[in-house]
């Protein structure tokens, strides 16, 4: 075994950034541009979707011996661009009591942005002030007007398509043109209009027009989750880390699993990070004047809680005791259906972009409902590329529909008529999923498991999480809405509507992969760990720029807000440093 002696890198960096996802990528992009000497620690490996050895885009299902099926190592399928998953060998996490929590991690440059859905929604003015509206949770220490200029800058830097709608709580971005709807999306637009469910072009960070010479444009293969060879979709690795590397102001250390943020015993300031080289298991240290955490909401909380010293016995930046608390993920519930009007449909290339072309932002007023927060609806369907899972469960479906001559037939079967059923039903399935806002609660948290270590000897996280009726009743409403939408299309819902005993079909917490809130910001140092600049109240040269600082989730996806806030915090760091305050 290699020696375990601690090796010091000689350089002292201006800034050490931990994690290369949306928040870390934006931080290194902004900091290196301003001339700071940056060290980026990434727990996983290098990744570039345009390097032949990583390419999965436009491969056919039969190029995979499992026809694209998922594995433990690629939970979203064999072509998905996420290395890691729910269950990483040697990197466990635990749960408390009957908590069920799932934690998805990507160990690669760009983190989870390489495979995400590219849904890029701004939070609205109300999303920062929910406590003032319904008395639950807390208000953010900032408002929409503070973030708005940074949303604008992110729109211009990265690109997002959509349509100007002037909705009160779903602010428009500076949009590229959206793609036209697919057939089932046209049907949804028509049906939802009858139902009064706002349905508009989706807002995804995919380039439908060129924005610079570094990135190409979308060629409509529907495979953003495989990461784009032309960099036509946003991922932190391609759009932020790569330009940061080009400045020559940054060193990237791969396979660097951060263990602790180090502090000066006298001043209490952060002065470095200790990490484990995951390939050699050596303990190493890197020194810096400022430390920026962007390891993901839960991983950053873990890092602070593990950074204990005589001066910070409860973990770093945790005199408030809030680190790890107020963990919340988006709620999720989904339903699929078959639409007989789409049987035997005409074939054409309907791939489109990697995701939905239309969606429904929250359209109702919670004051008139029995749950406090909203949700948006995402849709899928169309004549997609067959892969593992195609045709599965036809025995539950083909008995419901008479054949082309109108004769009743039996479910299941075999032979020529079965073969023809698959052709007939192709492209007739649709699905929809609600993504809603949960209430941030002190008793939903992650903490350090008192006994368990990962394979690097770092204490692991233990989760405690419960849904309340706020979320359950919201999921109930989602399912009632899904059935209305399906009915309006003349569709037949598949499976059974989930019951109260099944939490109305709520996904497990963590499964939507929108964890936020674990190192929240606020004006009161007793109730928050960070100030409104995402700077630790207790340690002025420590910042957090992933989704951990979020006070509440919004009925939006969190990435666009992570990016805007990371840009804001990074520019603040530059200004403070120039002013000699850091």
């Amino acid at each position, binding site marked *: 075994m290699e020696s375990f002696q601690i090796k010091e890198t000689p350089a002292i960096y201006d800034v050490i950034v931990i994690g290369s996802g949306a928040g870390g990528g934006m931080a290194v992009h902004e900091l290196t541009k301003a001339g700071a000497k940056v060290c980026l620690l990434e727990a996983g490996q290098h990744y570039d979707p345009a390097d032949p050895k990583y390419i999965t885009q436009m491969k056919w299902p039969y190029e995979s011996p499992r026809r694209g099926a998922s594995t433990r190592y690629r939970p979203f399928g064999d072509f998905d661009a996420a290395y890691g998953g729910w269950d990483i060998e040697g990197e466990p996490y635990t749960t408390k009591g009957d908590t069920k929590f799932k934690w998805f991690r990507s160990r690669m440059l760009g983190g989870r942005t390489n495979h995400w859905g590219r849904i890029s929604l701004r939070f609205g003015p109300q999303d920062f002030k929910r406590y003032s509206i319904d008395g639950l949770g807390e208000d953010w220490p900032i408002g929409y007007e503070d973030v708005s200029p940074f949303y604008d800058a992110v729109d211009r830097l990265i690109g997002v398509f959509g349509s100007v709608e002037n909705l009160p709580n779903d602010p428009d971005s500076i949009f590229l043109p959206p793609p*036209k709807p697919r057939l089932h999306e046209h049907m949804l637009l028509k049906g939802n209009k009858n139902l009064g469910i706002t349905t508009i072009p989706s807002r995804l960070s995919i380039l439908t027009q060129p924005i610079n010479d570094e990135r190409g*444009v979308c060629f*409509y293969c529907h495979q953003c989750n495989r990461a784009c060879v032309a960099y036509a979709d946003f991922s932190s690795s391609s759009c932020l880390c790569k330009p940061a590397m080009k400045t020559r102001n940054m060193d990237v250390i791969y396979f660097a699993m951060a263990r602790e943020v180090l502090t000066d015993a006298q001043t209490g300031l952060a002065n470095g990070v200790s990490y484990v080289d995951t390939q050699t298991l050596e303990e190493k240290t890197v020194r810096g004047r400022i430390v920026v955490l962007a390891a993901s909401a839960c991983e950053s909380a873990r890092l602070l809680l593990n950074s204990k010293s005589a001066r910070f016995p409860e973990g770093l930046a945790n005199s408030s005791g809030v680190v790890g608390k107020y963990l919340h993920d988006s709620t999720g519930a989904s339903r699929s259906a078959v639409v007989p009007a789409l049987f035997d449909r005409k074939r054409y290339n309907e791939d489109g972009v990697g995701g939905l072309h239309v969606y429904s932002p929250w359209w109702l007023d919670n004051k008139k409902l029995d749950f406090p927060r909203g949700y948006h609806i995402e849709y899928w369907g169309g*004549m997609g590329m067959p892969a593992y899972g195609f045709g*599965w469960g036809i025995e539950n479906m083909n008995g419901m529909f008479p054949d082309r001559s109108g004769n009743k037939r039996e*479910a299941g*079967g075999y032979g*020529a008529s079965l*073969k023809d059923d698959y052709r007939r039903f*192709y492209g007739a399935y649709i699905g929809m999923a609600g993504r809603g806002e949960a209430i941030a609660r002190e008793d939903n948290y992650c903490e350090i498991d008192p006994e368990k270590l990962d394979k690097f000897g770092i204490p692991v996280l233990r989760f405690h999480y419960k849904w309340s009726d706020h979320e359950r009743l919201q999921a109930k409403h989602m399912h009632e809405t899904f059935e209305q939408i399906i009915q309006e299309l003349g569709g037949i819902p598949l499976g059974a509507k989930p019951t109260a005993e099944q939490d109305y079909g709520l996904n497990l917490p963590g499964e939507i992969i929108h964890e936020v809130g674990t190192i929240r910001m606020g004006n009161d140092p007793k109730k928050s760990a960070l100030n409104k600049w995402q700077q630790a109240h207790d340690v002025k040269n420590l910042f957090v720029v992933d989704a951990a600082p979020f006070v509440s989730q919004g009925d939006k996806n969190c990435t666009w807000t992570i990016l805007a806030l990371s840009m804001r915090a990074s520019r603040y760091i530059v200004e403070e440093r120039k002013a000699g305050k850091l």
Partner: protein
Amino acid sequence: MKRRDILKGISFGSLGFVGLNPQVKAAELLDHPFDSDDKDKKDPAFKQFGRTEFEKERDAKLFAEQFFNKHEMNTIAVLADIIIPRDERSGSATDAGTPAFIEFIAKDKPEFQTPLRGGLGWLDNEAQKRFGNVFIEITPQQRIEIVEDIAYPERKKPGMSHGVAFFNLMRNLTATAFWSSKIGISDIGYMGNTPNVWNGVPEEVLKQYGL
């Protein structure tokens, strides 16, 4: 038309790109090695599909193992072709490589091993009891007699529930294997996985649906 030409068309023509840009690089990279006559593409990375080192080792290990014995493989082949036979439009399940896929997936997802091996055993036993020989040795007509009793879950014929569950699994694995194969994708009429410019649903289709 090759992917490369289409992609370059997107970059140069419709969108006014000039010079070398990521679109052109993408065009080079996505020009498929199996479709390509480009002799310069010697990088073995082009020949695989973005595996990590760990995945390469794991897949190689799975390929080196054999789960089903020869008799089981033969039975899978016969059954798969009963489920998806050749017709006027396309080949059969075995033409599309279904048995090899089922062999691989049983090793990749071990939860399938016992239901499949057990089901194959059940089938041979049923054939023995009814016709005095294993499934692949009885006549095609006799095979269909058994299949008729297990292919329709709602008939709920007494004593057949295990056979029905096995047949459901075989039907699903066969369908997945067939329709995700080159033959199946062409038969089903999937026209994507190629660079293009999406310009909405064809006019005549919108008209057909009154949209």
